[in-house]
């Protein structure tokens, strides 16, 4: 037997020749194991991310083999590093160009809270301008911590209901951040 671990099937009803589960769960499984990251790296956390993507830590194991440097084809925006206020509109632009469903990880102290840069020119956490799903603490976080953040996001993705992006709550969230919603 191979010791390669496969994604576990969601709970469902199994019989000879069929397996039935909910569409939410099946799609959640597929999404969670094919999250394409968009690295938005501005400083040392980005270096840790490079280590995370490289052979030793091999983020490819989690289905995030392909870095998407186009926001259109990315699922997971990973913001790594200090975001100056002048960079804020750029980050918002990148986020607004991502297609739904989209998720955001704030990697490291600076992206999460401004970190040590408690000053007039630095954004005190990216959640002032875009919604964030997972925060990874550390200055910078080790690759294990970044992978832990990705795995936590995978849990969120697996359990997200398919119509979440159509709900009033979600639209209200985006509108609170000043993004227009359609439909």
């Amino acid at each position, binding site marked *: 037997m191979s010791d390669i671990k496969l994604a576990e099937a969601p709970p469902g009803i199994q019989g000879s020749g069929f397996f039935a589960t909910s569409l939410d769960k099946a799609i959640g499984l597929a999404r969670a194991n094919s999250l394409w990251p968009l690295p938005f790296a501005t400083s040392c956390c980005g270096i840790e991310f490079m280590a995370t993507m490289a052979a030793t830590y091999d983020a490819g194991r989690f289905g995030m083999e392909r870095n998407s440097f186009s926001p259109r084809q990315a699922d997971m925006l990973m913001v790594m590093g200090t975001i100056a*206020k*002048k960079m804020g509109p750029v980050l918002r632009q990148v986020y607004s160009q991502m297609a739904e469903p989209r998720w955001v990880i704030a990697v490291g102290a600076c992206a999460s*809270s401004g970190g040590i840069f*408690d000053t*007039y*020119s630095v954004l*005190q956490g990216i959640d002032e301008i875009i919604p964030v799903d997972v925060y990874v603490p550390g200055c910078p976080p080790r690759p294990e911590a970044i992978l832990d953040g990705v795995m936590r996001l995978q849990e969120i993705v697996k359990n997200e209901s398919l119509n979440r992006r159509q709900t009033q709550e979600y639209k209200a969230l985006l509108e609170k951040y000043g993004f227009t919603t359609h439909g």
Partner: protein
Amino acid sequence: MAKLSNETIIARLNSRFEGRFNPLEESYGLLTLETGKEDILDVLEFLKTNGELQFGYLTDITAVHYPHLPKEFAVVYHLHSLVNGVRIRIKVFLEGSYPAIPTATVLWNGANWMERETYDFFGIQFVGHPDLRRILNVDDMEVFPMRKEYPLEDPNRMDKKDYFFGR
């Protein structure tokens, strides 16, 4: 050993600007002069174009805020004579909250961004500058952050209170 002594530089300047500039110090051998905003362009042009001095390279323009002085702001020019291997620093002290000084872009195109940066952080008006707007800070900023007139931290902010961190 520099090919040009500080005494020579002062002597050459004296030949044209007698009494219109003031040697301040020679800290670590770097000659520092003071002059007025009426004379600064002439002094810079003389230093740049004089065949012997040849201070052709504008290293930097910046400013210093001295809140305790009657002339609060000093604009500082650093020039480098690549031919002679000598540097020089020139300070111009300015009065008022919105001080103005002629632009050096007429002598060096490279002064453009240096003056924008100095305007951005100190609010010095460079009269005649082709495009004097902020360069490093966000455009809608309303203050000049390097002036020594702000508390180190906004006392009203609530997001980093000690009790959030168990302190």
